[in-house]
């Protein structure tokens, strides 16, 4: 094997985001080295439920049509011939309280105004579309957009595709330093070697702060732990990914997700806590998830739990992404903060970061995702429980 000493792009982090960046950059002809401290998808990507949301982006940006994002996944799977267990059966969102139902109406209207295909279902339709939903579910909406993908397979697929395009993927290779000179990042140190790079991309998820420090760049993400459980089920028990929708509020830390896999299993979740990088699966969380998902689909109680695990999502204080350059360094990019919508935004993030490197700008304005927004309001960060 020849001694590789330099890349156009050094990507730090081997989850869905990092591998997507590696793939998209390699596709544009850039030489890429990706460095991951463990096996691929060992962070949030390895613990994720694998949901692909209906809506793409956030309140800081105009919502992109989810259809376009669906197409990104379909195209990727087709172009690369990779099986990522892509499910395009759409999503069902449910409400089981009057407050939440009110919010759902408002939410559906808002999305419809933006041209996103989603509609409310009447009671008869609800039972028809998902017979196992609880009678306590008083409202539901369905969109053909979104669905699921298997996040670990997606990560490996992106890495394989990147490799085929010439990228070098280094797993079990922690980055131990980033060399900086004259306002630029000049390379990374990893696995007792030094690699020169024209661009350095920090896509290390919940570990972005630590990686940022190597370059003297402050990246304020914190690990937000989420736990899920795996249940065994006959096919068709639950036909779509189901998410509970809740009126946003100070108590609200996310809804309940029930998502079928193609292998006769159902993944249910999630939870939210801030306990550093601990990923112990806790009994209290398991009980909480059990209660909430049985509330939505009572028949789940008949199934058995095979496994429960947790991962840490990268979360920023305002809950929005960071897809940005850094003020201190010309060529240091940060792509993180995806929190619970990493899979959904994995491909588009790869595209955008690649545009920043090859064109110096992005095809959609992403000012809302600048890293500098945190230095602007540095006093009294209150990030933590939403």
């Amino acid at each position: 094997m020849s001694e590789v000493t330099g890349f156009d792009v050094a990507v730090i982090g081997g989850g869905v985001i990092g591998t997507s960046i590696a793939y998209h950059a390699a596709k544009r002809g850039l030489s890429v080295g990706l460095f991951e401290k463990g096996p691929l998808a060992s962070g949030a990507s390895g613990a994720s439920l694998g949901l692909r949301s209906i809506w793409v982006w956030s309140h800081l940006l105009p919502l992109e049509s989810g259809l376009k994002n669906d197409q990104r996944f379909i195209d990727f799977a087709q172009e690369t011939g990779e099986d990522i267990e892509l499910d395009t059966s759409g999503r069902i969102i449910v409400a089981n309280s009057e407050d939440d139902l009110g919010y759902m109406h408002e939410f559906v209207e808002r999305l419809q105004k933006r041209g996103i295909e989603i509609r409310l279902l009447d009671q008869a339709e609800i039972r028809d579309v998902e017979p196992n939903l609880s009678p306590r579910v008083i409202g539901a909406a369905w969109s053909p957009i979104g669905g699921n993908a298997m996040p670990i397979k997606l990560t490996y697929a992106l890495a394989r595709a990147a490799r085929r395009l010439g990228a070098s993927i280094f797993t079990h290779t922690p980055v131990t330093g980033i060399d900086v000179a004259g306002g630029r990042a000049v390379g990374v140190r990893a696995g007792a070697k030094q690699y020169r790079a024209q661009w350095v991309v920090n896509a290390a998820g919940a570990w972005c702060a630590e990686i940022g420090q190597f370059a003297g760049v402050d990246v304020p993400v914190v690990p937000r732990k989420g736990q899920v459980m795996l249940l065994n089920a006959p096919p068709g028990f639950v036909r779509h990914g189901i998410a509970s929708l809740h009126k946003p509020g100070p108590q609200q830390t996310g809804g309940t997700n029930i998502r079928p896999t193609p292998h006769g299993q159902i993944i249910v979740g999630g939870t939210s806590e801030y306990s550093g990088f601990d990923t112990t699966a806790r009994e209290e969380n398991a009980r909480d998830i059990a209660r909430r998902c049985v509330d939505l689909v009572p028949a789940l109680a008949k199934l058995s739990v095979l496994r429960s695990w947790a991962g840490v999502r990268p979360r920023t204080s305002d809950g929005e992404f960071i897809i940005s350059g850094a003020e201190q360094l010309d060529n240091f990019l940060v792509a993180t903060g995806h929190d619970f919508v990493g899979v959904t935004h994995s491909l588009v993030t790869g595209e955008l970061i690649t545009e920043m490197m090859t064109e110096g700008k992005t095809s959609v304005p992403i000012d809302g995702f600048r890293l500098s927004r945190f230095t602007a309001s540095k006093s009294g960060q209150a990030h933590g429980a939403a």
Partner: protein
Amino acid sequence: MRTERVDLAIVGAGPAGLSAALEAKAAGAEVLVVDENDRPGGQIFRQPPRAFRIEDRAKLGRDHKRGRALLDAVTAAGIGIETNTAVWNIAPGHLACCSGETSWEIQSGAIVIATGAYDRPVPLPGWTLPGVFTSGGVQTLLKSQRVLAGRRVLLTGTGPLNLVLANQLAEAGADVVAVLELADPGLFELMPMLRGPWSLLSDGIGYVRQLRRRKIPLMRGWTLIEARGTGQVTSAVIGQVDRDWRLIKGTERTFDVDTICLGYGLVPSTELSRLIGCEHRYDIALGGWVPNHDLYRETSIANVFVAGDGSGVAGSLVAMEEGRVAGLRAAMRLGKISEPVFTEKSASSLQRLRRLGRFRAILDGLSAPRPGLFERMTDDTLICRCEEVSLGDCRQAVKEGAVSLMELKPRLRAGMGMCQARICGPTLIEVLGGLTGQAPEAIKPFSQRPPVKPIPLAALLDSEAAE
């Protein structure tokens, strides 16, 4: 939710767990034993169901008799045993239990993990055919349920179990076609010593003599190559092996059988000891990954002890001595007895263990898997039975750069099925090691997460309202 607070919680009501319970109780500790089965006894002392009436104990065999002595002592001592209970999560001082659809917990000062072992899975062509069973499974069926798994039986593998089982099957009326034994012919009669002192040497020779009397061929240096049949097994292809258990081409023969017993030694059940975070080491002679412990069975986690086959396969007599030491040591650590009293009470067990350990050291190489064992598979042979992942699938993943079990798992689904990686794990460690040039000990086992056994979701729905 129901909480039981005791001094010592013991997982597993086999010889090790029950021995630990007896000693700890006698030393003044409050003890609670839990076991997933309907009745205590573990595997070797497995009892017939309560609903069966025992009419002639002598016909139930020597192990039943030894087991009765232990079980009667446990009853006499008033030791609490919760059966039909799976431990699904564990932390120092805490066990999450599930009985049916009810989850409850134990809080204890100390824990003894005595979870036993299970038959080593040995993938080979046709091993998933109905009629191909583990020797342990066939013996349990016969011993406890009094049912013959089949009529025309071939036993293959290595170890004392097959010798015993072949005789038991013949006595029960089965036609035992042959016993194929992998281990070095010269020494294998000594294997029953794994179960005890020299006096049992006569047992081993006795089993061999019985086979000869029954005209059951004991074919040393032979093994099963393939199980054949449609819908169930109807024939076995066998062949001779060299000292590394590798097939000698051209020696193949075929037997007509309807039942094959795979008896290749045991693998310790270490799910709980790994989940709680004990340090482990890889020792193939003991069955694979086993928890580290000091002379007194305490692991790297204070007040967590291990005993019996679950900490390294060594048979029931060793298990009982280890259980006694663990129970006494736990009692001492809990302040129930002083160190001098511990030393006095544990002396004879420790001495016996030393003696048995010497024999084991001699015999360790005998039944420990040799390289040829993992070369039975073809690319089409399944390694993960639950998710139907073959050797060929694993080879492909390694070609694409997988070097760890955690990298195989999500891509192939190996280890993601109902058995929670118990069946594929031991083989994958060896196979992955072979394919990537890593020693098996370099390959970390699948990470252990709760629940350790599948539990009904309903069990997690216990209302907290009563708090």
